[in-house]
C-alpha cells in the first residue's frame, strides 16, 4: 500500500520522536525561562523551559499533549537547539518557519532532524502543529528578553 504524500509528512524520525520524546518533562527552579502555549482549536498544549548561560542555550525541557506532529516537533527542536548560541537558534527558527510554509529557505543552515518537517508545506492545515514548539522558543527568547549578542 502506498501512502503518497503522507509519507513525506510522517517520516520515521518524526514518529520516533513522538513515541520516544527527548527532553520531555519540566524542571523546577527559578533560573529557567518558561512559556506555555496552547492551540485551543485542536487541543495542542505545550510548555517550554530553557536555561541560558553566556548566550548559549544549555538546557531545554518541554511537556504537553497533542498530535504526533506537534509533540515530535518539540522533541526535535529541543535536540536541535541544545548548546546553540541564541543568535544561531533564532536563525534556525526563522529558517524553519520559511521551510514549513513552503517558502524559500537557506539549505546551508544546519537544522538537524528538523529538516524532516519539510513535508508539512504540503499540509497547510498542519502548519500550526509543526510550529507551536518553535513559536514557543521564539516567545521564550523574546518574553524574557534574553540578551542578544551584538
Amino acid at each position: 500500500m502506498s501512502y503518497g504524500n503522507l509519507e513525506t509528512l510522517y517520516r520515521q524520525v518524526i514518529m520516533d520522536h513522538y513515541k520516544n520524546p527527548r527532553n520531555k518533562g519540566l524542571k523546577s527552579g527559578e533560573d529557567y525561562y518558561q512559556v506555555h502555549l496552547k492551540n485551543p482549536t485542536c487541543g495542542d498544549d505545550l510548555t517550554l523551559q530553557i536555561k541560558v548561560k553566556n548566550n548559549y542555550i544549555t538546557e531545554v525541557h518541554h511537556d504537553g499533549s497533542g498530535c504526533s506532529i506537534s509533540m515530535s516537533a518539540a522533541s526535535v527542536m529541543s535536540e536541535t537547539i541544545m548548546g546553540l548560541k541564541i543568535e544561531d537558534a533564532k536563525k534556525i527558527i526563522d529558517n524553519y518557519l520559511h521551510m514549513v510554509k513552503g517558502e524559500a529557505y537557506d539549505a546551508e543552515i544546519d537544522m538537524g532532524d528538523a529538516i524532516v518537517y519539510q513535508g508539512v508545506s504540503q499540509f497547510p492545515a498542519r502548519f500550526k502543529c509543526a510550529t507551536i514548539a518553535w513559536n514557543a522558543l521564539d516567545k521564550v527568547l523574546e518574553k524574557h528578553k534574553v540578551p542578544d549578542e551584538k
Partner: protein
Amino acid sequence: MDVNEIRQDFWVLANSSLAYLDNAASSLKPKPVIDMINHYYRDLGVNIHRGVYRLSYEATDLYEKARQKVADFINCKFEEVVFTRGASSALNLVASSLGMNEIKAGDEIITSELEHHSSMLPWQNVARIKKAKLVYVPLNEEKKITVENFKKVLSDKTKIVALNYVSNAMGYITPIKEIINLAHEKGAIVIVDAAQAVPHQSVDVKALDCDFLAFSGHKMCGPTGIGVLYGKYEFLQSMEPIEFGGDMIDYVGLQEVTYKDAPYKFETGTPLIAGAIGLGGAIDYLLNIGFDFIVKQEEELRTYLLKEMKKLSDITIYNPTTETGIIAFNINGVHPHDAASVFDEDDVAIRAGHHCAQPLMHCLNQIATIRASLYFYNNKADIDKLIKAIKKAKSFFAQFM
C-alpha cells in the same frame, strides 16, 4: 428526489471527489442560494428601510419577505423573528438582555455538559456576574439528557433552562418538549439552541412552546453572518435592546431615546441584508427538497455508516445510539488530528477537535474526537470513502507502533 441530481446544485460536490462530512460545522451552499445573494449584490446592492427609491424598496421587500419565510418555516409571527449574526449572537442576546436584567442572586440556571459553548457560556457569564447558580443536568451513561435527570435539577429556584435541541458533538435529540412543559410548570424560561435541529428536521416553535429558539444560516445551506433569534413576542417586547444606534430608534433626544418595537429594536445599524435574503433562499431550497427526504436520507446513511464502522477493530464510537447524522469516534492510539490528515489526503473532509464542547470532552475523557456529520446531499460513496480512509489511517499509523 435523487441525491445525484441534488449534488449538481453544489459546486464542490459536482466538480470534485470530496466526501464532505463536516456538515455540523457548516453546510455547503447550493446554486439557488448563491444566485439570491448575487441578485442582491449585483442588481440592487443598496441599503434598506430608509430608501424612497425603487432599488431600496425592492431590497427592503426581499429582506422583510425573508423574515416572513423564517416565520412560516418555524411557525411563528413575523415580528417574533430577530435577525442576528448567527446562533451564537442570538443566544448571547437573550443572556445579555433578559439574563442580565432578570436574574438575581440565588436564582438557578439549568444547562448541560452536552452544550455547545455558545449555548452554555453566555449563562455561565450571567451566573458569575449575578451570583446565580449554574446547574448541570446530569448526563446518563450514554451522555444523554433525559427527562428523568432534568427533573432532578429542576426546582422552584430555576429561572432559566438553556439546552440544545440536537447535540453537535453527539447527535442526540433532547426530549425538549417534555422539558419545556416541566420548566413552564415552575415558571422558568426555556431557551433552545436549535443550531443543529433546524437544518435537519421540521421545527415548530408553537408546538414546542419554547420561549426562545436560535439557529444559524450557514448550517442550513444559507450564507455566513446570519442567524435567527425566535422569541415569544411578549418577551421580546419587554426586553431591553443591547445595541444602540441607527434603525432601532423611534425618537432620539440628547439625553433620552425611545425604541422601535421588536424585532427592530434588536437590529441596530445597517442590517445583514444579503445574509437575510440568502437565508430566505435557503429556506425555499430546503422546503423544496423536503424534510421527509432529508430525514430519510440522513437516517439511511447513518445506519450504513454505523454498520460499516462496527466491522472495524480499534475504533471507539462514542455515540453508537446517535439519533441524527452525527457520529463521534476515535481510532485507538491515533491522535484525531493525525487521523484527520489522512482523511484530508483521501479527500474526506471531517472534523477533529473538541467541537466547541470542552465540558463533554472532559466527560468522555478525550482531548478531541473525530466527528463525521451528514447532510441530505451525502451518498453511500461518501461513506465508503470515509471507511476506506479510516482503514488507511489505521494501517498507516500501525507501521510506527
